[in-house]
């Protein structure tokens, strides 16, 4: 027994020193984990796609607390994994520290901005996508009342809310939009109970379409919509499959593309540091139409959506970015 044990320890030491030589891609999810059906899962889909197309395994790491984020990053960097995709603004400070210490390793941070020569920062024009689904919500609403459930009360989520509201009002200027935030900490992204409570209260006030930009909290929102026969709009990943028939659409944020592109570019040697902003024009955000929601979208709605989409890209419709001035005056 002791011998087995010692052998495995030795084997470990060897294997970890071997790992140093490799230069494989890696990803660090945030604490919600890769199966949050939303943001992280989007990245995970990109990772899956890359592995499926190239056969190259991507080293995945799911930290469980604050300290492990930096430790995990450091460990990956030390073993030479590159590029390392990191998910979410929560990781900004950890990535910043580790990227400074490992200038030869490439990092991509999604939803955060770091100004370092070895970091690519990918951010999205969520307001544009939110505007689109807002318009669709207004089209689908029979009560002329729609609502929004946000996760954590931060500027980023207000950006979703603001874009959504603009879209609704664009389509139907006298519509009512109810908004609720789930909380003021990270836990607000993972609280389906509260999500469902908020959605239920919005439904009883008359809302019949709800857009949740709330990570795992959204699961509760969609469940509530299904239970009460209302419509819901997903976020980040294409969530139309979560509750088919209930999901009107999803505001897709192509984090999967961002992750995939990082790996692909890196393999091709075209990966570049710096800020990458992805909007409707770049296919970075969009609304999702697939088999799951085809029945809910009439040809008329589809046509209108295409029209609005084109207008945003062309600049005919200006969507206000909440984060540009921390207000929602449009």
């Amino acid at each position, binding site marked *: 027994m002791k011998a087995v044990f010692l052998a495995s320890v030795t084997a470990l030491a060897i294997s970890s020193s071997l790992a140093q030589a490799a230069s494989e891609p890696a990803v660090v999810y945030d604490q919600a984990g890769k199966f949050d059906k939303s943001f992280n899962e989007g990245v995970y889909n990109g990772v899956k796609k890359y592995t499926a197309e190239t056969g190259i395994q991507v080293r995945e790491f799911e930290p469980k607390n604050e300290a492990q984020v930096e430790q995990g990053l450091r460990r990956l960097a030390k073993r030479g994994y590159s590029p390392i995709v990191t998910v979410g603004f929560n990781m900004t400070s950890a990535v910043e520290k580790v990227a400074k210490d490992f200038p030869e390793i490439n990092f991509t941070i999604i939803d955060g901005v770091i100004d370092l020569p070895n970091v690519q920062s990918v951010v999205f024009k969520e307001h544009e996508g939110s505007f689109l689904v807002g318009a669709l919500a207004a089209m689908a609403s029979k009560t002329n009342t729609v609502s929004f459930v946000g996760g954590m009360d931060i500027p980023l989520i207000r950006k979703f809310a603001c874009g959504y509201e603009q879209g609704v009002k664009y389509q139907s200027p006298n519509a009512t939009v109810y908004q*609720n935030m789930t*909380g003021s900490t990270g836990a607000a992204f993972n609280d*389906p109970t*509260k999500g469902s*409570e*908020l959605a239920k*209260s919005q439904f*009883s006030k008359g809302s019949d379409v709800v857009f949740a930009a709330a990570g795992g909290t959204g699961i509760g929102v969609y469940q509530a919509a299904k*239970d009460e026969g209302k419509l819901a709009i997903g976020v980040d990943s294409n969530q139309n499959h979560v509750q088919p028939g209930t999901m009107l659409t999803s505001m897709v944020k192509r984090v999967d593309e961002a992750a995939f592109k990082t790996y692909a570019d890196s393999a091709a040697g075209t990966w570049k540091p710096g800020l990458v902003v992805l909007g409707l024009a770049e296919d970075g955000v969009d609304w999702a139409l697939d088999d799951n929601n085809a029945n809910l979208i009439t040809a008329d709605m589809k046509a209108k959506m295409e029209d609005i989409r084109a207008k945003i890209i062309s600049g005919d419709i200006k969507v206000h970015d909440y984060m540009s001035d921390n207000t929602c005056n449009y």
Partner: protein
Amino acid sequence: MFETLILMLDATMRVSTPLIFAALAGLFSERAGIVDIGLEGKILGSAFAAAAAASVFGSAWIGLCFGIVASICLAMIHGFACITHRGDHIVSGVAINTIVAGLTVTLSMYWFGMGGQTPALVGDARFLDITFPFADAIASVPVIGPIYSNLLSGHNILVYLAFAMVPVTYWVIYKTRFGLRLRAVGENPHAVDTAGISVAFIRYRALIICGILCGLAGAYLSTAHNAGFLKDMSAGKGYMALAALIFGKWRPVPVLLACLLFGFLDAVAVRMQGVEIPGIGQVPVQAIEVLPYVLTVLLLAGFIGKAIGPKAIGRPYVKERA
């Protein structure tokens, strides 16, 4: 205004349900002299077991059974430590809470591989809402309509069960042989022992009931209120139930009222996040969230009434040596 109130009360019923189950669970345990800060762990354990079983077998009822069994097992560990081995009740409770917090995530990762969640439950794997007869028909009648069709109708069966458990608990505690013995054991176990009744057996039975009720609370969380298990989904409900138990002075009806009060505060807090109230501005949600704990502390400190628990609570029963 009336509409809003009805909606808030409606939410209060849903949010209070796990608190009621758990606080009544604590009532059985603590009235028998066993301090139970492991309510939290039992709720979490049951929530996981219920969701896991419901997703595998596709039946909420099977899930409920598993949840209850898991919770009873945890209660028996508590009993084994506190009753059989005279261990410290608080330490045992902390141990159970800690073990469950770790184990549920570990096991769900292994079984479902979804970052500590179980798959979303659909259809029969969940307890669905029950609509009372004519609920839709009289929904438009003023006052009675909203009360009947919004507030009373349209909850799942566990919500009604929770409220039904209150009179049942009252009856068991005050009107039955078991209840008499249970209360006696919490006050003076020596008296019970000399009356020829096994102290340990009564306490174990009290803990089994405690386990069943916590099991219901947990199953409600994961298979009725939500549609699946989530890491740490009990989120302090066990502790809040404990606070409600103290706030209700270990008596069924006041405990119910305390749970409803705490549930109402929660329902208010949920809706206050980031909301500007004209003229006042944002009310910090945290101030509302924290009220149940502050009220309980004030009560314990004797600033609002006095909470006197069962006399023999927390003390292991040892037959005195001559």
